[in-house]
């Protein structure tokens, strides 16, 4: 009898121990999100640090009980290798898992799933800032200013800084895809609405080893400014060729030379890594706060990267900051929904996101959504490459992009 009691006692003890060690450390709620992006494959030079930024932020949230009550975020990050069909499959799997917000990536994948997002009514935070993603769409919440906003802003910046009475002659150097063409079309609309530039030529690049012919042609046509909207590698090759040919402007708008400018994915530390000194003088529009600014925001980004053992390259990448911001938007949406005393589900998160307003250390300005506004950070910084880093010249908000949007 005694041994039977001891047996039962021991069994209970074992059960208690097993439960004690198998129960999650957090007794709170787990909020499920899903992220699909190119960690490998095309554009993974951007996607990889982006994923690291998001992953680190979610780890930080969970470790510091940022949401309170022991609540945590579970956000699996999956590598779609820039393949739209894989993104779609992941999205469907995430839906089956009951995610609250989808963190997506490429322009193509988002355009392909745009209708699905509306049908399923799921808030989406993309890494693509293609203007078309928020046209006739309610559920896509753009983290920062769109590529179109970048391009139009750069054109406005050119108009503002151009010396002389003539109309500045501009060429566009773009990616041969919807990603590249969208901002061009919006800039052309801005021109038709009165923006004072002359778009002399549009170059859709290929896999070029030498841009001599193109650069000399642009010069012969009197082009002074080249606005780029593509990824870093072709821009790097072009800048290197321009340096070799001696056609790069030494100062902004130098007559007879070319001043190069570019949108979000054309610039950053990766461009400097690829093109070296040829990057000097490159003007870049971006809504992220760079670590080279050495301000409070930059320090916080570097601290986060250090906490999770990231190398310098990832820590200083603006794409790492972009990943952090996307994760922060999702986190704040959950936090604010909780704070409002609402049940944390897709419907209420969607409602919360429409009035979400907070300051992120990774961004150039505050995140401000409204029921009619789907762009988080409207402010852009205009940076210039100088001494091997990008330095802020000024903040910028486009006037013409509002006119373009109103004209749609």
């Amino acid at each position, binding site marked *: 009898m005694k041994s039977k009691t001891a047996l039962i006692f021991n069994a209970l003890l074992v059960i208690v121990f097993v439960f004690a060690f198998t129960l999650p450390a957090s007794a709170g709620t787990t909020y499920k999100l899903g992220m699909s992006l190119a960690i490998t494959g095309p554009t993974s*030079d951007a996607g990889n640090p982006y994923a690291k930024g998001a992953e680190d932020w979610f780890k930080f949230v969970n470790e510091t009980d940022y949401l309170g009550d022991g609540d945590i975020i579970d956000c699996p990050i999956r590598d779609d290798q820039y393949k739209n069909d894989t993104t779609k499959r992941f999205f469907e799997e995430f839906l089956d898992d009951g995610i609250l917000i989808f963190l997506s990536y490429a322009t193509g994948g988002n355009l392909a799933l745009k209708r699905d997002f509306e049908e399923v009514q799921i808030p989406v935070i993309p890494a693509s800032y293609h203007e078309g993603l928020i046209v006739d769409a309610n559920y896509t919440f753009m983290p920062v200013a769109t590529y179109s906003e970048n391009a139009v802003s750069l054109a406005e910046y050119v108009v503002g800084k151009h010396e002389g009475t003539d109309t500045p002659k501009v060429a566009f150097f773009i990616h041969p895809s919807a990603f590249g063409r969208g901002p061009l079309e919006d800039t052309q609309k801005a021109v038709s609405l009165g923006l004072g530039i002359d778009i002399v030529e549009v170059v859709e690049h290929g896999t070029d080893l030498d841009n001599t012919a193109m650069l000399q042609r642009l010069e012969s046509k009197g082009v002074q400014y080249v606005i780029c909207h593509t990824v870093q590698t072709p821009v790097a090759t072009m800048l290197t060729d321009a340096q070799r040919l001696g056609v790069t402007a030494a100062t902004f708008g130098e007559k007879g030379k070319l001043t190069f400018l570019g949108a979000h994915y054309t610039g950053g530390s990766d461009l400097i890594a690829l093109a*070296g000194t040829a990057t000097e003088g490159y003007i870049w529009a971006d809504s992220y706060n760079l670590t080279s600014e050495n301000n409070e925001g930059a320090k916080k980004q570097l601290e986060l990267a250090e906490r999770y053992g990231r190398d310098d390259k990832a820590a200083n990448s603006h794409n790492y900051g972009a990943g952090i911001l996307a994760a922060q938007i999702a986190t704040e949406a959950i936090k604010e929904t909780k704070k409002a005393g609402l049940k944390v589900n897709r419907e209420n998160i969607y409602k919360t996101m429409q009035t979400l307003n907070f300051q992120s250390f990774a961004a150039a300005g505050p995140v401000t959504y409204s029921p009619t506004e789907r762009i988080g950070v409207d402010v852009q910084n205009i940076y210039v490459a100088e001494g091997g880093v990008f330095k802020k010249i000024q903040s910028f908000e486009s006037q013409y992009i509002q006119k373009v949007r109103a004209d749609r």
Partner: protein
Amino acid sequence: MSYFFQIVVSGIVVGSIYALAALGLVLVYKSSRVANFAHGQIIAAGAFITFFLTVRLGVPIFFSFLASMLITFFLAMSVERIFLRRLIGEPIISVIMVTIGLASIFDGLIYLTPFGSENFSFPTFLPTESIVVGGVSISWTQLVGVIITFVLIGCFSWFFKKSTVGISMRAVSDDQFGAMSVGISVPRVFALAWATAGLSAAAAGCIIGNITGLNFETLHAFGIVVFPVVILGGLDSILGAVVAGIIMGLIQQFASGYLDGNFGLNGTGDVMPYIILLIILLFKPHGLFGIHEIERV
């Protein structure tokens, strides 16, 4: 006029780099009649090995360059030994499918390293100023690239024409059974063909990487970009690869220089080489220098 000559120089520069990148495809096809779809990955591997040795291990770039050629020589030889040797005598399509599979495996392996998703560049080791003659400019990177290309192509041409091993490789290319009957080891020739292809791919990777920067997607794309060069020149002709490479480079630059931006045209630099390729193939289906095989049935 200097504009015209600048385009000629740029065309020759681009074309000769195409020729070097195409050489590996020709070498493999010449001996084994196989189109190697993993060639771009070997080009990328060569560039990254050089970068790793130079930047991470501090080896002088010249020695890194030679070492990477040596490493890819043995890498490609191993690939042939492990995966392709047992396919000798099997239908060519099976072997081609294996090379496609190999491309995926190489992709996966490179994606496991930082080289799969980050951008890098070689340290500057050549003067950054251009050489300008009569208003025509060429960078040291391009000049050195062209010189290395022609030296390597010269070496390969000599190797195939004069050396015993090279002649054996040509014999195998002409007639495997005939070559075997005179005592040539066909498997050994296949291994050597793959190895030399690996060597030339590494050289091409380093030169391309020095021009475009080191980005895996950009580098391995050249394995496909040079296919039209190989087809135009003739799949089994080294001379064909050189001539076709330069033709392609010139067409690309002239189209970009004179057609793009005029007559409402754009992107002709990418399209024109293919249009010319199709026209030439209408008249010479085996390429400019390819062997026209006639079989008696």
